[in-house]
C-alpha cells in the first residue's frame, strides 16, 4: 500500500513537472500552431498528474489533497525522474526530452491499462490515447529536425547528446518499482524495452540520426536526488501556496 502510494506519487510528480516545463513555452513557441500543441500536451500531462495525485491522496488516506501533495513537498521529496525536470533549452531540447519521455510513457500506459490496479488502469486507459498523440507529435518533430536543415540537425544532435543520459532512469526500476513489479502492479520494464527501442530505431532512421550508444546513464530523481534545476522550478510552482498556506483559490 505504502509502496503503491509512492509509485503513484512518482507518476504524479513526473507528469506535473513535465507539464510545468511545457507550460513555460506558452506564448513563446516558434510557431503559433506549435504553441498550441505544446500547451495542449502540457494540459494533458497536468490532467494526468491531477488524477494520480488524487489517487495517491486516496491511497494515503490522511486527508491530504492533490494540491497538498503538489505544493507542499520539497525538492528532495519529489520523485520524478531527472529527465522531466531538465530545462526547456531550445525547441530541439524540448522535443528530444519529450520524445524520450513519450516513448516510455506510451508503452508504460499500454501496460498499466491492462494491469490489476483498477484505478491506475482507468487513468492509463484515458491517458494512453493522449500519449499516442504526443508520441506521434514528438516523433514527427524528431524526423523534421533530424532531416531538416543543417542547423536543425546540429541542434537536435546537441540535444540528444545532453539529454540521452537521462533516458536510462525511466526503465531502471528503483526499490519501490522492483517491489511492485514483483507484485505485478508495475510492468516489467525490461519486457517493454524491445518495443521502445524499435520505435526509437524507426524514428531515428527516418530522421537520419544515429541512435546513441553506450551512454552513461544518470539516475537519482526517482529517489529524490535531483539536479539543481528542480529547486528553482519548485520555487515558482509552489510560491503562492507557500506564501498563503491553507487558503482556497
Amino acid at each position, binding site marked *: 500500500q505504502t509502496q503503491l502510494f509512492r509509485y503513484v506519487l512518482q507518476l504524479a510528480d513526473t507528469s506535473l513537472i513535465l507539464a510545468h516545463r511545457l507550460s513555460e513555452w506558452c*506564448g513563446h513557441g516558434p510557431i503559433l500552431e506549435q504553441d498550441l500543441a505544446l*500547451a495542449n500536451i502540457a*494540459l494533458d500531462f497536468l490532467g494526468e498528474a491531477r488524477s494520480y495525485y488524487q489517487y495517491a491522496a486516496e491511497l494515503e488516506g490522511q486527508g491530504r489533497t492533490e494540491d497538498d501533495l503538489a505544493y507542499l513537498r520539497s525538492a528532495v521529496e519529489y520523485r520524478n525522474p531527472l529527465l522531466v525536470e531538465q530545462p526547456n533549452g531550445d525547441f530541439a531540447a524540448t522535443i528530444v526530452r519529450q520524445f524520450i519521455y513519450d516513448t516510455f510513457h506510451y508503452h508504460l500506459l499500454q501496460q498499466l491499462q491492462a494491469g490489476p490496479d483498477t484505478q491506475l488502469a482507468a487513468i492509463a486507459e484515458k491517458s494512453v490515447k493522449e500519449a499516442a498523440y504526443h508520441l506521434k507529435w514528438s516523433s514527427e518533430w524528431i524526423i523534421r529536425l533530424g532531416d531538416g536543415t543543417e542547423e536543425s540537425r546540429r*541542434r537536435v544532435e546537441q540535444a540528444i547528446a545532453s539529454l540521452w543520459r537521462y533516458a536510462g532512469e525511466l526503465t531502471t526500476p528503483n526499490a519501490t518499482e522492483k517491489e511492485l513489479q514483483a507484485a505485478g502492479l508495475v510492468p516489467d520494464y525490461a519486457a517493454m524495452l524491445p518495443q521502445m527501442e524499435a520505435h526509437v530505431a524507426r524514428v531515428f532512421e527516418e530522421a537520419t540520426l544515429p541512435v546513441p550508444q553506450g551512454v552513461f546513464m544518470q539516475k537519482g530523481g526517482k529517489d529524490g536526488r535531483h539536479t539543481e534545476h528542480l529547486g528553482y522550478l519548485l520555487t515558482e*510552482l509552489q510560491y503562492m501556496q507557500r506564501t498563503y498556506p491553507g*487558503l482556497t483559490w
Partner: protein
Amino acid sequence: METLELTQEEQFQARIDADIRIEPKDWMPDAYRKTLIRQISQHAHSELVGMLPEGNWITRAPSLKRKSILLAKVQDEAGHGLYLYSAAETLGASRDQMLADLHSGKAKYSSIFNYPTLSWADMGCVGWLVDGAAILNQVPLCRTSYGPYARAMVRVCKEESFHQRQGFEIMQTLCEGAPVQKEMAQEALNRWWWPTLMMFGPKDADSPNTAQSMNWRIKRFTNDELRQKFVDMMVPQAEFLGLTVPDPAVKWNADKNGYDFGDVDWEEFWNVVKGNGLCNQERLGARVKAHEEGAWVREAALAHAAKRKQRASEV
C-alpha cells in the same frame, strides 16, 4: 434609355445596409478591405500579445485546477489568434507580413496588454474586466458585415464569455476568502480599472474613423457608448464582490439610467499607445524573440516538407 444602374460601390453599400454578409470573393472597396485587414490583424495581434500577461502566472498559479484553467485559457487565446489571422488572410493579407508589421511596430495591438500582471488577483481582473471589455467590443462584431470575420467572432465571443466568468470566479473566490485575499483583489482592481476603461478607445470626439466604420457595419457602437455600457455593467458587479471601484466620481444617475464616472487619464492613454507603457518593450520584445528564435524551426519544417515532396515525386 437611362437605366437606374448602381455603381459597384453603391451595390456594396446596399448589401451592407441590408445586412447581407460580404464574402471573400465579393467585390469590396479598397478602403473597406484595408480597414478590415488593419482591424482584424490588430485583433489577432492582441490575442497573441495577450497571451503574455496571463502566461506570466501559469507557472505560479496557486492550485492545480487554477493552473489548468489558466493554461487552457491562454491556449484559447492562441486559438483565437489563429482564427483571426485566417480571417485576415481571406482578404489577401499574409501572416508573415502581418507578423512583420507587428514586430516592426507598424501594426498595433491592444494597449491593455502593456500593463504588467503583478499578483494572482490580476488573473481575476484580466478575465473579469479585460475580457469583459473585450466582449462588449466584440459581441457586435458577430454581426459585422464581413462574413469570415463575423464567423470567427462568434467562436471567439463564446469562449471569451467563458473566460470572463472564470475571471469573475477568481475574484469571487478571493473576495470570499481571507482578508489578505480580498486586499489582493482590491489592489488589483485599483490597477486595472482605468486601463480597462481605456480599452474602448479615445472619446468619440477624438475618434474620426468611427463614422465610416459604423457605416460599413464593422463597428456598431461608438467608443463612449461602449464605455458607458461597461461601467454600468461592472460597477454593480464590483459592489456584489464587495470591492470599491477606484473612481470617487462613480455615482448612479437616474436621469440617464446609468452611472456617472470620472474622466480617463488621456495622457496615459496616448503614452501607452505611443509605445511608452510600462511593458511595451517587454511585450514586443518577447514576441520578436520567440519569432527570431523560432526561425530555424520553421526553416527546418519547410526544408523537411520539401524533401518529402521531392522524394514522393521521385517514386
